[in-house]
């Protein structure tokens, strides 16, 4: 290898390392910023109206901002459920809404209405299962989501009346305000006891939950 070939190889290596270091530094900065933001607005993470799964007094709280039309949220639902199975007494899940896709707000309102009929989780699972049918991002078909909810045993007529109530509109508004304050721009966004993920991923979530569980062991 002559000196020219060597210089090309060395420069390529330097560029690659600089790129990776840049990614690491940038993600660190973003995580710190989000952590501070979450600490400043801790009261915005959980609201009275937010649906909760798992023991009320669990030491570890996973807050998930999710969008019923988001594929990754659908993929993460069983992952989060598995985590809860793994720590049945230590972890609870709080769901928040981030209706970023068109049509999502209507589905969110339906979910909230389902809560009144005590069918929240059944309807949520049915709507997520049917997501590929109704949640085409260019052309969502909310009617199909409603159908799926009906299959879960929801009284659709009653639910749709409830869904247009100002109380449910207020819930949605509150969640949108909170996600703006917390700088949530992607779904799903997780906070585990107020701490954001270092970078997005299944493993990172599992690790953060494990850390928090270990921290709160008596």
């Amino acid at each position, binding site marked *: 290898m002559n*000196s*020219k*070939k060597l*210089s*090309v*190889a060395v*420069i*390529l290596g330097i*560029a690659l390392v*600089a*790129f990776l270091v*840049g*990614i690491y530094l*940038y*993600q660190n900065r973003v995580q710190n910023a989000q952590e501070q933001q979450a600490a400043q607005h801790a009261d915005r993470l959980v609201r009275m109206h937010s649906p909760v799964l798992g023991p009320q007094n669990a030491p570890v709280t996973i807050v998930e901002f999710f969008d019923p039309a988001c594929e990754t949220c659908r993929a993460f639902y069983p992952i989060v459920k598995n985590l809860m199975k793994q720590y049945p007494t230590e972890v609870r899940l709080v769901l928040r809404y981030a209706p970023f896709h068109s049509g999502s707000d209507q589905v969110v309102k339906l979910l909230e209405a389902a809560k009144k009929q005590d069918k929240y989780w059944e309807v949520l699972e049915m709507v997520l299962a049917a997501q590929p049918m109704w949640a085409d991002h260019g052309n969502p078909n909310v009617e199909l989501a409603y159908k799926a909810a009906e299959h879960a045993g929801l009284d659709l007529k009653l639910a749709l009346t409830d869904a247009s109530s100002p109380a449910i509109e207020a819930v949605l508004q509150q969640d949108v305000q909170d996600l703006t304050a917390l700088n949530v*721009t992607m779904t799903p966004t997780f906070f585990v006891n107020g701490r954001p993920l270092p970078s997005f991923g299944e493993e990172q979530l599992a690790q953060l939950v494990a850390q928090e569980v270990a921290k709160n062991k008596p």
Partner: protein
Amino acid sequence: MNRPWTLLLLTWVISVVATASALFIGEVMGMTPCVLCWYQRIAMFPLVAILGIACYSEDRRGAVYALPLALAGIALAGYHTLLIAGFIPKAWIPCSAGVSCADQQLAILNGIQIPWLSLAAFFCIAGLLIIYLRKTSK
């Protein structure tokens, strides 16, 4: 190291820095590229491979193949720069759907516009390539 080859190496380094920056801004910082940005990327990304191989194997023809891409890049980045500067009426923007090319947040590092950087990079690459080709022509 002879001097003309250093010029070629410099063009390659510029393309590497530009490509890495574009990927960083797009993929790591999450800024979605608009249509015009994509066209500039199409002109810039291949330069990393073409000029890289040209430097590695000391092949003068690499510069010949790279030059049209660099010139196309100047045209596209020039158009984009005029667009954000407001010299071209917005009605002419070819990318109304998706991310807007003129209204997008394009400023990084205290107001340096990304299209300026793109234009500067293409200018340097094209200029250096022309000098290199002149110096090495027999």
